[in-house]
């Protein structure tokens, strides 16, 4: 027993070593040609590859293409696509020998990193990024994996699981179309010009897949809760959920943490006043309102995906007919707008037959696997999202309209008051800046994080950020190791590093909470740095990190 656990604990080390050997041996054998992607590395757009594939498909020789559900960039030749997927599959199969439960996490090759994420059983997402010390291409693997995870959770929220779509239409046309539009729409936010900018070391003081919360006083909090209760009672007796946001910060949510994160992410991307007005989402300073991708996406699709066309043509039994899968594209840009009555409207979900009234959006909840109508109301900086169980709304749009009417009647005054109070107490975008500190605070249990404002983080030197990225990488692997130990016992951890530029980098983990900190203008001594953490913890974290 003891021996086995040791083997598991060292699993990742072994894999890392083996992979290096493997990579070489495979290249030597020339069977897959691992370097083919690298040889054409001069093309900037190919610095990133992203694919989704299903290991249960295309089992037979000659049908390998069937595995591919999505590939970016789509215009890569099939042979290249197949080689990437073939390598990935090979590694997964190989590592499963050692660890059937959790196979490969990452391959670190000399020039590339391959990030693996098993979104659903046998549905894998793999991202290949180029390493380049000179440019900005310094990655933290967990940050990249969180991008994959985010794509998947959002996809599931809108379309249900990938496996379900695959099963629905065995030719794969349905799922390919959905994944294609969805991921391309998602990636459009990461494009600067023609280049994909994924989160790199500069985003070390950020945690994707978490929610940022607004801190409110007791009185306002009670008002908000009162509003939430009234809202959720607007649809009669059915159990509704709600999400209340101010600017792009969460005020209150009654959903499970997972669902809250997904819906919050979507709201920040497309629904908040900032997202509506400028198309620039505030949390990602990388995104510069580039929407060119959308228009180009169709073109790319048309000329680069013969495989997809091929499947369309083969599906002549499909009642939908040629290439006309009705696709809902929730991440499409500039599709949401604020209606006269304050409710947000979109035609993404199409319209009912014979009417111009847009269909109400629906999403799937992860926790309860329920289909919910999404009803969003916006008043100045306040965004309120109400989720109504689709099963409880009998007559569709009419029912939703009635609920909306109820909201206007019962809750509009409360919303007005809450908005007013929140605006009065709102400290601006630098509200959570603590001078002297650059920090990231993550509560893993609740999926909540708070960080220094992006504008303040940019003042840090590259050295500090790169070092912090490394530190976090270290903490990530430590955490994974602890998790694989099982037992659910959360270990306390503290790391203090003096970087090349004399900045102190600190990581502290305690009982599910994480604190990362960069102190550039810190004094010489470790004692000083430790003191600074203590002060911060006492003042801003209720003493959660001041155990020593």
């Amino acid at each position, binding site marked *: 027993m003891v021996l086995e656990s040791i083997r598991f604990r060292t699993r990742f080390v072994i894999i890392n070593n083996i992979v290096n050997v493997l990579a070489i041996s495979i290249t030597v054998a020339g069977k897959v040609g691992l370097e083919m992607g690298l040889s054409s590395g001069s093309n900037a757009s190919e610095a990133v590859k992203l694919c989704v594939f299903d290991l249960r498909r295309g089992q037979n020789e000659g049908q390998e293409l069937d595995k591919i559900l999505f590939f970016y960039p789509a215009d890569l030749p099939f042979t290249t696509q197949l080689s990437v997927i073939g390598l990935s599959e090979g590694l997964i199969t190989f590592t499963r020998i050692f660890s059937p439960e959790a196979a490969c996490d990452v391959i670190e090759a000399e020039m590339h990193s391959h990030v693996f994420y098993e979104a659903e059983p046998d549905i894998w997402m793999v991202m290949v990024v180029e390493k380049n010390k000179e440019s900005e291409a310094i990655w933290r693997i967990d940050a990249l994996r969180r991008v994959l995870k985010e794509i998947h959770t959002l996809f599931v929220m809108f379309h249900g699981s990938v496996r379900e779509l695959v099963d629905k239409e065995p030719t794969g046309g349905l799922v390919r179309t959905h994944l294609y539009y969805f991921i391309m729409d998602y990636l459009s936010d990461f494009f600067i010009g023609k280049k994909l900018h994924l989160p790199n070391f500069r985003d070390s003081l950020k945690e994707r897949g978490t929610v940022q919360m607004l801190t409110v006083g007791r009185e306002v909090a*009670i008002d908000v*809760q009162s509003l939430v*209760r*009234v809202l959720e009672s607007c649809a009669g007796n059915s159990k509704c959920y709600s999400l209340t946001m101010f600017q792009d910060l969460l005020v209150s949510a009654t959903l499970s*943490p997972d669902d809250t994160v997904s819906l919050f992410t979507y709201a920040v991307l497309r629904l908040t006043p900032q997202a509506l007005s400028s198309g620039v989402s505030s949390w990602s300073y990388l995104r510069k309102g580039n929407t060119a991708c959308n228009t180009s996406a169709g073109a790319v699709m048309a000329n680069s995906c013969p495989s997809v066309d091929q499947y369309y043509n083969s599906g002549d039994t499909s009642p939908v007919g040629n290439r006309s899968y009705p696709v809902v594209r929730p991440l499409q840009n500039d599709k949401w707008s604020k209606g006269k009555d304050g409710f947000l409207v979109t035609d993404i979900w199409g319209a009912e037959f014979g009417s111009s009234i847009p269909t109400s959006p629906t999403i799937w909840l992860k926790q309860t696997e329920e289909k919910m109508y999404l009803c969003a109301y916006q008043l100045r900086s306040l965004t309120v999202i109400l989720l109504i169980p689709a099963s409880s709304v009998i007559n569709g749009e009419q029912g939703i309209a009635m609920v909306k009417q109820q909201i206007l009647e019962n809750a509009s005054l409360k919303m007005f008051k809450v908005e007013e109070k929140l605006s009065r107490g709102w400290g601006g975008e630098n509200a959570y800046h603590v001078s002297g500190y650059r920090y990231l605070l993550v509560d893993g249990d*609740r999926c909540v994080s708070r960080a220094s404002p992006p504008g303040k983080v940019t003042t840090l030197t590259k050295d500090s950020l790169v070092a912090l990225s490394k530190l976090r990488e270290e903490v990530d692997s430590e955490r994974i190791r602890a998790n694989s130990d099982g037992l659910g016992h959360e270990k306390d951890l503290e790391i203090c590093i003096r970087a090349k530029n004399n900045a102190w980098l600190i990581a502290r983990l305690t009982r599910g909470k994480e604190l990362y900190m960069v102190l550039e203008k810190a004094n010489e001594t470790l004692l000083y740095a430790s003191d600074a953490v203590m002060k911060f913890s006492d003042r801003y974290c209720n003493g959660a990190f001041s155990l020593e």
Partner: protein
Amino acid sequence: MKEKNSATASVLKRILVNCSAQAKQYGSCVAARVPEVERDMCLKEFLVLKNCMRNVLQGKEHVGMSGKASASNHPGFSVSDALSHVYIQYPPLRCTLTGTKSFLYDDGNKLLLGLTSDRVFSWKTAPYNPHVAPSSDPLCEGPVLSIRYSLDLKLLAIQRSNYEVQIWNKETGDTISQKCRSESESILGFFWADCPTCDIVFVKTSGLDFYSYNPELKSLHLVETKKLNVSWYIYTHESRLVLLASGMQCKSFTGYQLSLAGIIRLPRFEITMAKSEANNKPILAAEDVHIITVYGRIYCLQFDRAAMLLHSYRFYRDAVVQQGSLPIYSNRIAVSVVDNILLVHQVDAKVVIIYDMFAESRTPISAPLPLLLRGFSRASESKELSDPELIIYGDDWSFLVPDLICDVANGYLWKIHLDLEAISASSSDTPSVLEFLQRRKLEANKAKQLCLEITRTLILERRSLPVVARAIDVLITTYSQAIKTGSYQKRTNTEDASPSGVSNLKSPNTEVDESSRVDASGIKQESARGIESESSNRSTISASVSDGSVSFETKKMTSHNLDSSSGKTEGGYMVEPEASGAQVDASIVQSQILGPGSNALNANASEQLESQVSSAAISPADLYRFVFAAIEEEMAGDATYLVSIIVEFLRSASLEKLKVDPNIYVLIVQLLAREERYEELVLFVLNKIIDPSKEVAMQLIESGHQNVQTRKLGLDMLRELSLHHDYVLLLVQDRYYLEALRYARKNKVNTVRPSLFLEAAHASNDSQHLAAVLRFFSDFIPGFKNTSEHNSYCRIVADMNSSIAT
């Protein structure tokens, strides 16, 4: 409840069968005017229908109404238990003595006086007790026009004729005779006053004479004379106001108030009367004018027979302002005031309409309904055969100020009661019902219980959130008002305060309370007045409406200021009075200051003295105990709804800065955990909606068996509350023994037994950890090395190490 409903239904069915014609008429009348629905718009038809209903009820013996004392059908009685808001309770106060010639009412002392040929019997009517025994004094032969005891009951004044009043000293037996000075004037009446300058006032056709009584000289001494022609006058002791009518039509009025502060002259005012014919000049009669006192305000009501309207005038110090008119449906009316509610008896129609003048509203509280005789049964009737026929609104009824009825023919004295239950059941607008009940003082406890019951029912019936929220708002704001004005006090408290000062304490409090309530009604223009701007948050009753006036009592103003400042010094959260000595002190100080000043045109103290001071206000603690805790189990299936209600309750309380019972937070935690709404629970705790306390923390930890996160919240709360011992103990329990040790060392916790740590470390099967723990205690606890525990664990560590090595 159900049983009663079905009984009512069957009665209604019979009524509808028998009175279909009348019902149809009433229905068509309503239908004809339906777009503009008004109250009482088809009253005539309604009364016809009502008469018919009454006959139907009387035609049947015992209509089978369940509950309450059985409604017997004595002829001439309107008996319907369910349909009445005002009742008189059987048995009455029987003032039947043989040889009683007449009854007179001394409203200064609240005595009903019965005259026989040689004695005067007096029954105390306040506090009302139907079995009170009369006391008597001898009376000389001769005619008696009116008779009143002095306010200290030592003197008895008897008006013998239009020219003579005799004053008889009970102790010495001396008699003073006071006569008119000339034949040109006559005495209309007299009354005793408690004003500092005069003791008795004679109202004569030529004006007022103010006399003071000199006990040493045993004589009256003329203080002041006011000359004016008086046709008739009215006076009520509770208002201390005398109204003198003059002029051809007797519609020109002059008023004087004889308060503790002195004699205040009110501005002269004219009453306008509708003319039935062009040349007809109606003469106003004394019985058509009434002085009433509600909520400490004084009104004059005038029955305009031609217009069939009851006009109301409100008295301010330097103005008399007409307030509006109430419709009248009878040629004979009477007016009573019960617990600040105005009752207009439509004597001919045998119904009573009730109004709450609080918000200056002219709409009746409910539909006209008959006056009910309660507790009268055939059984009791047969037992006392002497009982003569009882006729509701009989011709012999005289209505005494404020809430008594004297049945002169039978010598019965009835006290009028409000049926708060019936009134509150007759309206579906719960928040306003609650407001109404919260204003009740006479049966404060009953009103309070009703309020709690109504609130409970609201929640149990799952009424919509806004409705319940408004109801809770009403209760919380009235409580907060009551606390600010100091009128919310437990009875024990007032009794503890010097017994001699009780009277002094009680009355002003109620006064202040009322004034603040006036403020609450939103008469905002008053506060704009310069002199009052200082205490604009609590404008007094006395301020004027439109044409400007000054406040009545500067003393009163200062006391208000003092009151508010004492509220300020307390700052932050208001504490319930019983919990804070300061608050009680403040109210005592305030009462002392108010004492002499509580007499303006406002209600007089003596009335309120008798009623219990406790108000209907409900503290948040009571709300928790009698509402939330009481219904928690019944609401088990719908915890989410109950949480919503509690959130509204917390919102209301925080708005008024009231502290709530910590148990309510425990309840929230239980409810949310039961529904597995852990995410909301986190929000509640982090946003401090749930006040941190040890109880809450322990509940979180308990509920956290299902949800680790909730348990962590509880632990964090313990840490933040610096409950080090519990925190360390729980950390060890959760097998975080190393962290616990570190924390224990940092915060110097030495109350947790080392064995707990050692056991936990041992259980983790990690020899290094166990050794570390052992080492810790050896180093930090002196003498630990010598304990048997140390030795045994040393052996264990050694064993573990050897087993690994092999």
